[in-house]
């Protein structure tokens, strides 16, 4: 599977970039909209949660800290859901290619993962700029940040691929995903810190596959500390498990995907 991805790397990366640039079809300023979207979002969150609600995180931090905390968790989350959702639809969207070309199926899911990565990289860069302007200066720990995020996207790629395969046979998967993501979002400490959870519910986050990745991003970006050892293990475990699940599903159904499309 990896060898196929490597062989088609230039196609995946190039087309992901094209897909990203032309995400808003027919609009000349497509790249501008790609940037304007996260700029607006970050600016709004900063304004709303700093000026209107003046939310604060426990353990201090300036007035902007909560809004930055929210963005640090929300942007990776968005990239993950984007990758899973578009990944799940990738086979159907690219049915014309799959029915005719001898290309490995999963490169289309990988392309969606790469699109999400490009988007994440740009919005995080914007967040970093906002953060610096607001006095939250970068540290050496920021250099670690790409690793948990890449692991998160690998996790998302695996889930997207597995669901994408199943979606070929049961097209309800895409619909169901929206519901699942809504519930999952609120179960994950993104808009709230894990500390506010009642003790009786705290254990749940340990079984939440998204939590270690989000937690790492928040730790590095907000609390200026590298992820703990257990968090690293959890991240490697979930991304490996996700890839294993995807390989299993793809292995079982690969021969039928193109028949059913």
């Amino acid at each position, binding site marked *: 599977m990896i060898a196929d991805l490597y062989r088609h790397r*230039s196609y995946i990366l*190039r087309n992901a970039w094209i897909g990203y640039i032309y995400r808003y079809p027919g609009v000349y300023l497509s790249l501008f909209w790609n940037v304007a979207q996260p700029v607006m979002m970050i600016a709004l969150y900063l304004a709303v949660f700093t000026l209107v609600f003046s939310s604060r995180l426990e353990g201090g931090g300036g007035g902007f800290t909560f809004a930055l905390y929210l963005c640090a968790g929300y942007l990776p989350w968005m990239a993950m859901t984007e990758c899973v959702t578009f990944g799940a639809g990738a086979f159907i969207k690219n049915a014309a290619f799959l029915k*005719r070309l001898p290309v490995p199926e999963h490169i289309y899911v990988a392309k969606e993962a790469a699109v999400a990565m490009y988007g994440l990289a740009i919005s995080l860069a914007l967040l970093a700029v906002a953060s610096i302007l607001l006095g939250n200066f970068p540290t050496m720990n920021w250099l670690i940040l790409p690793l948990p995020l890449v692991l998160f996207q690998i996790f998302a790629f695996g889930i997207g691929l597995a669901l994408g395969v199943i979606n070929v046979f049961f097209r309800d998967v895409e619909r169901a995903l929206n519901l699942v993501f809504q519930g999952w979002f609120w179960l994950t400490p993104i808009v709230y810190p894990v500390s506010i959870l009642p003790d009786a519910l705290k254990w749940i986050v340990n079984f939440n596959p998204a939590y270690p990745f989000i937690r790492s991003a928040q730790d590095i970006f907000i609390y200026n500390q590298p992820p703990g050892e257990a968090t690293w293990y959890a991240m490697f475990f979930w991304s490996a498990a996700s890839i294993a699940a995807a390989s299993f599903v793809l292995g079982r159904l690969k021969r039928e995907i193109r028949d059913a499309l």
Partner: protein
Amino acid sequence: MNTHDVIVRVNGLGKRFKLYDNPLDRLKDWASLGRSRRWNEYWALKDVSFEVRRGECFGVIGENGAGKSTLLKILTGAMYPTEGDVEVKGRVLSLLELGTGFSPDLTGRQNIHNSASLLGFPDDYINAERLRQIEEFADIGEYFDHPVRMYSSGMYVRLAFSMFMFMEPDVFIIDEALSVGDIFFSQKCFAKIRELMDAGVTFVFVSHDLNAMQSLAHRVMLVEKGRCAFIGEPQQAVERYSSMAGKAKSGKIAQERNPQTDSAKRAVSGGKFIMDPSDVLKHSVLNGKSRHGHGGAQITALRVTNSNGADTALVELGEAARFYFLVKAERELVDWRVGLSIFDRMGHLVFGKNTKQLGIALPNLAAGEEAVIGLVVPLNIQPGEYTFSVHCGEPAPGNINPNSGQVCDWHDSLGPISVHFDYVKSLIPFNGIASLHMEMLE
């Protein structure tokens, strides 16, 4: 045959599709971990075996739905076989893919790079020299550097075809795509294909274009309902295919035939049929799709042969096609005629003529009587596909205008019949739709 010369080997190939009546059944099957089978099977291909040698052009023909595309997809690797072995030595490239990988926002040049990477070619495969050859062959001028979405469909095909022609695979798989584009470009493509063939590139060629099949293929396989019905000489395969197409239809007509009329046999000329009515019936190409008329007589069968008497849907330019009409009178027929019209790809009437116009008076028929009329026409018309219609008529009652008549039975949309010409080998004898008689004044 040297075994190391075999470049494509297909052995006992079968492709089964699982058909579920209801998507929930599939879920139940999955839940049972393979213990239940709620699907119906459909074998698109079964027991197909053949070998293709290096530098050979292997043709595949068959009716729609016979399994030709499934076979191609399996050879390309775009579909997995259910059983049997498929072994292809080297890189396969399929024209099924013709332009599939093109992205409308990229220029022609960028798309060449992009498609190459999609097909897994290394990045440096499209070097400056190859790109120059592709650009030159496509011959679309400055459009090569314009986004593909601005292309006409002809330019699109040119770009796609040129790209594939210069990718140097070991095996080329060509499907119907060959018949698109203008005639000049297709001539160029045919010449290029011959050049590649001489250079040892192997071709697997699937088409309904029997002309192209005969002019390119070394051996042809006839696929019938997913099984290999024949492998051998192109001429034989094409003839079998043409007669198969006739056979399938004549079954229906034989049933419709009224047994009472069998006794009423009489010749049109000299007390003898020019062809036995049962032979006409057996090889009838009538399809009953579009038929009208006032009645009084019926064309119950029509057989089309070449000058050697073989059933055919393909003739060389200038070669004569013979049309045998089996006509049955429903009442007494006097001063009647049969005729034939030929229509081109755009539906233009190219030529039509009946026995009356030939100055022939057909003998009167009594009710229930049958006659076989043969018309022979040298097809001096532009190479390509044609449809034809046949009709049987009589004078309009009470009308003395020689050009008016009444249709008894008219069959439309018959054929197609292909007129073939090898542009590479010989000089085309005329330009335009059809040949008129022309000579130089002394």
